[in-house]
């Protein structure tokens, strides 16, 4: 049975990875699961310089979901290169580095710094709803998606995945813009902007007022967007948004995702990725699927 997939020349032993920001750089979850099992590790977003992130509370629970406004706290790309890449290189898994920035120059600087390192792919976060500058502002306008994709592609030594925001009227427009800009792949969805109010204290549950909604509750939106994008562009898709079980992951694959990422579910059950990997194989066996490629995007 083949579960290997290849995106932009990078071969993944299976189509299961983690969603950026929910897994750190793997060290913590590595105490609970065998990182060698994963198709890839996608790291927490990293910028050209350290970011302190937002004040707390940074998260709030919602029905079948959660809001986060971490604000892309990160140690900066220097520390990342020195500490996190060597850590991840110990494992037989691919490394995808999620990159964030406030300006195009920030992104490009980080991408260039990563150029000579041993990372396999870059995932560009132009869809974070929790920072004032950069992030989502880039990701909601097709023109700026195309521009930033181009600027990054001009300097990137590794294949580039553009991570799209679901907070748009028509996600196929930003997807096409990323394709036009030369993206090698797309990942979707990032979180949906949400808000929770603490009615007893009559204030926002998050210090940042709004946060990004993730988790099983948003899965139907994510599956719809993956389906739309898969039928609109010719790029491989990493699908995510609420994946908690192998069945969820298979929904994304049938809708058109070549890979899937587990995010919020890691918090609920740290073994989710492993269960998803095993569950996809069970499903393939049960449905007599020899090669995972024969089910990618077959629901039309």
């Amino acid at each position, binding site marked *: 049975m083949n579960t290997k997939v290849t995106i932009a020349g990078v071969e993944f032993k299976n189509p299961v990875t983690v969603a950026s920001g929910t897994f750190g750089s793997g060290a913590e979850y590595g105490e*609970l699961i065998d990182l060698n099992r994963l198709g890839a590790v996608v790291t927490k977003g990293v910028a050209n310089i350290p970011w*302190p992130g937002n004040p*707390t509370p940074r998260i709030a629970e919602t029905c079948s979901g959660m809001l*986060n406004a*971490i604000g892309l706290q990160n*140690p900066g790309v220097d520390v990342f290169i020195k500490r996190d890449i060597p850590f991840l290189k110990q494992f037989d898994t691919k490394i995808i580095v999620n990159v964030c920035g406030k300006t195009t120059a920030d992104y490009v600087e980080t991408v260039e710094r990563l150029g000579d390192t041993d990372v396999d792919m870059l995932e560009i976060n132009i869809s974070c709803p929790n920072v004032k500058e950069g992030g989502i502002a880039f990701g909601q306008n097709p023109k700026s998606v195309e521009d930033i994709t181009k600027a990054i592609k001009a300097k990137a030594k590794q294949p580039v995945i553009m991570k799209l925001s679901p907070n748009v009227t028509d996600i196929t427009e930003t997807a096409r813009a990323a394709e036009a800009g030369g993206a090698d792949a797309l990942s979707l969805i990032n979180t949906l902007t949400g808000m929770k109010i603490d009615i007893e204290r009559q204030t926002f549950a998050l210090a940042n007022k709004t946060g990004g909604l993730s988790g099983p509750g948003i899965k139907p939106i994510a599956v719809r967007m993956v389906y739309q994008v898969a039928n609109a562009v010719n790029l491989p898709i990493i699908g995510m948004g609420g994946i908690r079980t192998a069945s969820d992951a298979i929904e994304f694959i049938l809708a058109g995702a070549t890979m899937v990422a587990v995010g919020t579910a890691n*918090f*609920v059950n740290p073994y989710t990725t492993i269960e998803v990997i095993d569950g996809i194989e069970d499903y393939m066996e049960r449905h007599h699927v020899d090669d995972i490629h024969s089910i990618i995007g077959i629901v039309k």
Partner: protein
Amino acid sequence: MSIKKMTVTVNYQKKLAKDVYSMWLAVGSMADEAKPGQFISIYSNDSSRLLPRPISICEVDREFRSIRVVYRVVGAGTEEFSHLKAGQRVSVMGPLGNGYTLKQEGRALLVAGGIGIPPMLELAKNLDCEKDIVLGYKDSQTFLASELEDYGNVYIATEDGSVGTKGNVMDAIRQHGLTADKIYSCGPTPMLRAVKDFSVEKSIECEISLEEKMACGIGACLACVCKSKDVDAHTHVNNKRICKDGPVFNALEVEL
């Protein structure tokens, strides 16, 4: 030390005071290494509630490989836990965090308020020195005080004055002229701030346990940070992760 997530069995549950429950969980090997000041994440059986509820380890029974938690019902998650009956199952992850650094000589002062009191029990059991234990409650709905008496001199403060000193833990400390070589504390932030100030004033080493909303519970998501005095070695900003670098900090390390 290895963290595990597992489904465990409730051995026993009992109400201690209004909205305060005590529950023993048969956690197997998780009990072998659990230390005072560490916590466990308890998960809801309702699949609409995703995030773990961090609850301090109140007592460890290594022989029966069990952990005791004492918690207050404040929302849907703790409400759900309060209905668990012996024999029922619940998912937990742990042991989490670092725990208190035990100083076995001299005199220890344990200062805790409200639902910060539970970790003091396992701590008191493991501290082999003279102990004064100051407990703050809102009113006469006290809990764990008599159990703590087995391990040290217990002083109580209540906001309404119904038991012990009227006021807060600092009032009780002053009233009884308590001092120590080391302070261990857990409770609401205003109390910790006062305890920290007191420790600084008296130059007493002081460890405090902090609280913040958590998602992963193991240091990966950066939800639960507190401000640290110095740039933190892991995060490279002035943020420490309460779940991983804490919940116990040297009072001087963190800003409250």
